């Protein structure tokens, strides 16, 4: 216990703790929407497309997360636009944005003179180096998401469950599809530092799968997902600190272990 108290006297650890809590809130809620609506693959496309922005950030000398934000929102809009116009098959459209973003990122990183510092932390996450500024952004996002999903809970639920029916009842389906796509993109970008581009899909899917073992109700699934995501992030954070292994990978490993345990307990 003393060790824990001691850990919390370090700023970097407090930041990491807050990051895991805020990541759990945004990813728990957004991930439930993503999983329920079966748009995990779209989210994967957005995630990888954001690497283009990170490369651009390095090249232009701006914060790579700003570039990632621009790229992920644009690719989210692009995928939504392409598939709603129906001219390109949705999965093909996702793959195009996915690989285009990665390609642009690699080209920019290559063109940037010298060594690209922290590149690995964007790819695989580094929760122990999250800055206070990033914590504030994550807090703002978590609040926006909580507010949005509380205000429009039923609208989001109805549109997600049966989009055509929602259209026949005059719900603003297109507007919500775009707004939610923006929230997905922002969630991805602001959590890149926690688990990294390659691993972020895990925060949007594994806690939700765990929650889904216990409930088949949208609202409850969100709350449980936040809980499981936080539990895994915090335990993973501690393990990675003491065992001195990469935090992102440890968090995901913890998530899978929790999922397995819940499945096992439920089976008995």
């Amino acid at each position, binding site marked *: 216990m003393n060790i824990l108290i001691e850990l919390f006297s370090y700023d970097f650890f407090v930041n990491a703790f807050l990051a895991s809590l805020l990541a759990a809130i945004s990813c728990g809620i957004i991930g*439930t929407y993503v999983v*329920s609506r*079966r748009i995990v693959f779209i989210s994967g496309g957005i995630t990888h497309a954001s690497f283009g922005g990170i490369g651009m950030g390095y090249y232009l000398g701006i914060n790579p997360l700003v570039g990632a934000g621009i790229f992920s929102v644009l690719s989210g809009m692009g995928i939504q636009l392409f598939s709603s116009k*129906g001219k390109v098959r949705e999965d093909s459209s996702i793959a195009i944005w996915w690989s285009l973003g990665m390609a642009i990122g690699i080209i920019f990183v290559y063109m940037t003179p010298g060594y690209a510092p922290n590149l690995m932390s964007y790819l695989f996450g580094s929760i122990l180096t999250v800055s206070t500024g990033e914590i504030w952004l994550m807090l703002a996002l978590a609040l926006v998401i909580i507010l949005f999903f*509380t*205000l*429009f*809970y*039923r*609208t989001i*639920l*109805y549109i*997600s*469950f*049966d989009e*055509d*029916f*929602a*259209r*026949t*009842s*005059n*719900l*603003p389906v297109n507007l919500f599809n775009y707004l939610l796509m923006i929230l997905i993109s922002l969630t991805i970008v602001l959590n890149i530092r926690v688990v990294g581009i390659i691993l972020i899909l895990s925060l949007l899917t594994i806690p939700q799968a765990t929650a*889904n073992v216990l*409930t*088949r*109700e*949208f609202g409850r*699934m969100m709350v449980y997902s936040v809980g499981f995501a936080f539990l895994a992030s915090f335990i993973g954070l501690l393990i990675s600190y003491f065992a001195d292994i990469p935090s992102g990978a440890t968090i995901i490993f913890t998530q899978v272990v929790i999922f397995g345990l819940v499945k096992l307990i439920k089976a008995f």
Partner: protein
Amino acid sequence: MKKKLLEIKDLSAGYDGNLALENVNLEVFSDDFIGIIGPNGGGKTTLIKTILGLIKPISGEMILHISKTNIGYLPQVNQIDKRFPISVIDVVRSGKSDTALFSSFHKNTKEKEKAESLLAEMGISAIRNKAIGELSGGQMQRVFLCRALMNNPELLILDEPSTYVDNNFEGELYLKLKEMNEQMAILLISHDVGTISFFVKTIACVNRHLHHHPSNIITEEQLTSYNCPLQIITHGNIPHTVLKLHDEHENHEHTH
């Protein structure tokens, strides 16, 4: 008083430039009970999606004389994601969606009571908190029927409501629809002309074109001249459709 609910004039519609419907005309009145039949890919679903405003017509007009929210809609079951985390009661409540926006802050007691009373009417109150994926085919269709009725619609549109249900429920459903037809117009899509023609008042055959037959009896001449590919059962010297409720009645019930 008979009221005109909608009219479709010289309508052509389809996806990606492929016409599923061509120069279709149809009027629907408040006391109508129209069975919409036709082959798969013949444009039945395109027709109702146009009526519902989900598809824009390529040419022609679709004029609605009632509000869009006064149409109750029961989609094909296979369009529904059965693993979606949603409870029965929430599915039914989603039918009353003009109150859905900001609904977290509305007092929804009336809406909830309405949903509960519809579930009770269908005899499925006991499953109100079950997830949609735990239901049988018949239960699911009842739930979607409840949802379609939440707004007290003037027009009810059902797309293949008898898929995945047992024969018992199918008969029960059609009797219920016949009863509801006293309050609302009904458009019923089915591939099963034999069964529905017992209950509907008129039949519209959709196969790229639409022919609205003035009665629920279709003769072979009509069918061949309209190119409606229906199963015709004939016996004796006079060809006629046998419109039967159950297979075992095959040789006893037919319309002359």
